[in-house]
């Protein structure tokens, strides 16, 4: 016979797990709302800077600015944006798998690429496998501000300019909706695919187009990275919310299964007791 007390214990432990996952789900959903808002308030800045960069880049063709020219690729950098903590379903693993398979395809030796890691899970993964991690950011707040990411963004751009690497690719989870996100790969540097802004006025440059590109392009690349980070954060919260919702649902199923088992066992115990009493009484007669 199944032990009644054992089943009771399992029901209780599943119940307390459910309480935790339920709480985490609610926390994530409120964080997701904030993250979406952050991403939204960032849009005007991004649009504006894109417009101006497009206008300038189309106005001054062949400026020869180092950030706009492709050079022979000797070393590639991968900026991988993940999370600090787990319990977010496939959020980190899908992105790591994608990066790993890209690396396996493109490179033969570990000298051909470097990794810039955002998030503890990402950093630990690559460090453990002896990849060349040259920069990392961990323990980012859930609602990062531009100041939090400025350091790594500036480093990433700076190392491209001084020739540490010749290409910068960025991997992050793009937030599609509250229940879906997809791994996105984006080439950040060199900036070869700037869309020329259509129909904008031709600008006067003060002091010169080149001098402005000097200021503008790093700012543009940094803002691309920041945009990806906000996007990644939003999908992290949504992934965690979905994962915790699944966990809560599973816990509910488990609890009802166990309660059924418990009731059956209890009923069986009662039936057995009655049979024993009746049997005992019959033996006395």
């Amino acid at each position, binding site marked *: 016979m199944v032990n009644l007390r054992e089943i009771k214990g399992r029901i209780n432990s599943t119940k307390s797990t459910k309480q935790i996952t339920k709480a985490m789900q609610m926390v994530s959903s409120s964080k997701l709302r904030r993250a979406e808002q*952050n991403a939204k*308030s*960032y849009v*005007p*800045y991004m649009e*504006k*800077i894109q417009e*101006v960069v497009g*206008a*300038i880049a189309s106005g001054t063709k062949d400026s020869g600015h180092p950030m706009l020219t492709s050079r022979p690729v000797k070393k590639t950098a991968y900026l991988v944006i993940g999370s600090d903590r787990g319990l977010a379903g496939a959020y980190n693993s899908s992105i790591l798998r994608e990066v790993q398979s890209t690396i396996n395809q493109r490179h033969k030796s570990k000298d051909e690429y470097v990794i810039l890691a955002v998030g503890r899970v990402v950093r630990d993964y690559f460090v453990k496998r002896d990849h060349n991690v040259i920069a990392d950011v961990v323990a980012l707040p859930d609602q990062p*501000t*531009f*100041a939090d990411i*400025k350091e790594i963004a500036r480093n990433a751009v700076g190392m491209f300019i001084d020739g540490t690497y010749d290409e910068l690719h960025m991997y992050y989870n793009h937030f599609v909706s509250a229940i879906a996100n997809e791994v996105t790969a984006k080439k950040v540097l060199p900036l070869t695919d700037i869309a020329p802004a259509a129909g904008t*006025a*031709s*600008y*006067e*440059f*003060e*002091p010169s187009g080149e*001098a*402005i590109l*000097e*200021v*503008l392009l790093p*700012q543009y690349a*940094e*803002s691309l990275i*920041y945009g990806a980070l906000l996007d990644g954060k939003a999908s992290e919260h949504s992934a965690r919310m979905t994962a915790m919702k699944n966990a809560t649902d599973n816990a509910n199923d488990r609890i009802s299964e166990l309660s059924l088992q418990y009731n059956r066992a209890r009923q069986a115990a009662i039936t057995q007791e009655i049979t024993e009493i009746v049997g005992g009484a019959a033996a006395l007669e």
Partner: protein
Amino acid sequence: MKTVTVNIVTPDGPVYDSEVSMVIAKTTSGEIGVLAGHIPTVAPLAIGAVKLKKADGSTELAAVSGGFIEVRPDKISILAPSAEVASTIDLARAKAALARAEERVQKQKDNIDFKRAELSLKRALNRINVHQGNI
């Protein structure tokens, strides 16, 4: 007097949006004053104050840390990595940043970090000046 819309936008969201009659900003090549109907211009900004003169004669101040200004006949946009209007500046924080930056500047005279420390010193000073209105 004719007015023009001014936006100050940072990655953390818009910080200023209003009609003004004149904008005075500090670019890397010197101060410029922009009135409504200016020809389209783009100029990089230095760390400094932006003066926003309203049609009623009052003046507002904002602290910006770099970025650039984009001028169009009907609209002026300032895009900066960070910017605050004078009334929203956290004076205590700026003063703490100033003390920190001063210390770092003195410690690392010939370090590569010197330039960065100097920049944060400038930003902190700029915030304090804008907050107190002595431009």
